[in-house]
């Protein structure tokens, strides 16, 4: 019997691993930030190297260091020596070799010329002319895979003109003291800084809370109002909740997140905020784990999320079960978005293709430095999976809704 166990353990030891090798030229020449040939914006951050190393090696200690921010587009220096504070950001992904950097400008950065961040499109209710802080994001759970999933799915939501709040972005090459650091996405923030920038209001006017895997964290503003809101969710006070939430935005948010099958949500990666006495709205971010696992699950199963109780699931079902109008509005919006094709595979594929084409030439830099992805063929496989699974998800959701 022991031999059976030994055999089984050996089998498990072997369980699933792959190594790829290829002829693709991954030896893209290491050049300085100014010299490198790329379509992407190139950021060069000047810091005290030993301070940076200390911060990098102690990602849990929330160390902030000072530095200077430079940005090139097409070899032209558009931003020069802007004073910044830098911090390692991210949860689980902060343990990766390429870490997400939080960049906070000394003063709000004037982005009216789109020199800092230049997304293809922004929603009509948003403004990115003044930016206090950005993230240089390592793609989170999509690091080593496509490195464009979050960005592409966010662009789909923007192009669909959804009434939601999100983070804008574009891919970039980042250098630290003129040494290549990594391919990172420049993103606006989804926190209080980010929302105050998008709506052109002061930070002190915003009340914001964050839903994480383990807890609800009151971050800024009127904590009593947050407590009252959560109490109303717990006692399923539909009238109070309907009065406190921007319902149109909430429907769009829940429809889109459940449609894309985000499995790192709703128990995590969610924030809600209000400006002054305005209604609560939700912020969509971290879309790295969408259309991957559980693509055959219904929207309600995705939202139900039995694995981890959370206030967002409770809020949704308090309204869904307690208010027929909300339930009707939810499915009407689903039907509308699916029938008009705004969130279809046909709309998603060109976004992914364009983003892939933009970063393709620079993937070898990432392979050389981090083996992430391991090879170009692995990157192509992950892109293919992303598109194929998205297409399947659309068909599955349409089928489920027709039923």
């Amino acid at each position, binding site marked *: *019997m022991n*031999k*059976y166990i*030994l*055999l*089984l353990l*050996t*089998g*498990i*030891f*072997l*369980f*699933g*691993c*792959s*190594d*790829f*090798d*290829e*002829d*693709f030229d991954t030896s893209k020449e290491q050049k300085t930030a100014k010299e490198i040939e790329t379509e992407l914006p190139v950021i060069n951050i000047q810091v005290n190297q030993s301070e940076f190393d200390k911060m990098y090696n102690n990602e849990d200690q929330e160390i902030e260091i000072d530095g200077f921010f430079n940005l090139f587009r097409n070899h032209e220096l558009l931003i020069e020596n802007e004073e910044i504070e830098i911090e390692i950001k991210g949860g689980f992904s902060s343990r990766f070799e390429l870490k997400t950097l939080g960049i906070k400008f000394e003063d709000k950065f004037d982005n009216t010329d789109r020199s800092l961040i230049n997304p293809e499109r922004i929603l009509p209710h948003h403004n990115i002319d003044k930016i206090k802080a950005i993230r240089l994001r390592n793609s989170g759970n999509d690091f080593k895979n496509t490195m464009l999933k979050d960005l592409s799915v966010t662009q789909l939501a923007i192009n669909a003109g959804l009434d939601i709040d999100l983070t804008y972005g574009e891919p970039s090459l980042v250098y630290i003291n003129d040494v290549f650091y990594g391919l990172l996405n420049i993103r606006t923030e989804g926190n209080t800084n980010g929302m105050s920038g998008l709506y052109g209001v002061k930070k002190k006017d915003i009340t914001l809370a964050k839903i994480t895997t383990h807890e609800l964290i009151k971050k800024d503003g009127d904590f009593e109002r947050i407590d009252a809101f959560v109490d109303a969710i717990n006692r399923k006070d539909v009238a109070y909740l309907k009065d406190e939430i921007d319902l149109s935005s909430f429907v769009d948010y829940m429809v889109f997140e459940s449609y894309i099958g985000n*499995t790192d949500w709703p128990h995590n990666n969610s924030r809600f905020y209000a400006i002054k006495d305005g209604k609560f709205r939700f912020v969509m971010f971290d879309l790295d784990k969408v259309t*991957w*696992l*559980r*693509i*055959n699950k219904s929207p309600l199963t995705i939202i139900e999320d039995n694995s981890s109780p959370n206030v967002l699931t409770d809020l949704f079902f308090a309204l869904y079960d307690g208010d027929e109008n909300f339930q009707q509005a939810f499915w009407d919006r689903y039907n509308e978005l699916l029938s008009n094709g705004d969130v279809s595979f046909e709309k998603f594929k060109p976004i992914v293709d364009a983003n*892939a084409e933009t970063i393709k030439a620079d993937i070898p830099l990432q392979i050389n430095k981090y083996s992430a992805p391991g*090879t*170009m*063929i692995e990157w*192509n*496989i*992950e*892109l*293919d*999976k992303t*598109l*194929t*699974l998205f297409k*399947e998800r659309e068909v599955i959701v349409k089928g489920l809704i027709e039923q």
Partner: protein
Amino acid sequence: MKIYSLLITISILFVLTGQAQSKHALFLSTGYTYNTSIRINGEEVKDSEGYVLNYGLNYRILQFKTFSTEIGLAGKTIFSSGELRRERFSANTLRLAMPIKFVVPVSKKWSATSGFIFQNNVDISEFDFRLRDKYSWRVDFATEARYTINKYWYLTGGFALNLRDMPDAYFINDPKASFQIGIARHTVILKKNKNKL
């Protein structure tokens, strides 16, 4: 690392030799594996093929007259290659497989088997055995002829084909079809003798 894992497994398997025909058989087979047509991101992958090595243990679970059913546990190593956009690539992959076969004797020396092989189909990079990825497992139909050499040894030759409808991306390093030949040996799994008082 993988070659060491493979050698360790084979060594363990062949230590388990016995002296009489039993319910158990250790097997080792190898062959050619291929995809007839496969596309990644709309581009055709040319020459998507490779070699496959299977090694493991079969266990006879049911015997009905001359028919029997076997279940097994096996390692599967695939050395695959191909070409995408004029760039050659190669991959080696390890999978854990569980064959379930129905064995029909045809003559004294020959028998035929057919059945299914269940295996994991994606790398398990997270400690999550819930297999939530829709395509995290695959099932092949397998058919095989067996020639008995003597009471210990028999030869095998057969064909396996994936049955699940899956995106092509999942077949790059583990192609859909394979032809294999192999050898197997009946074994006895040793048990401790109980003292009779």
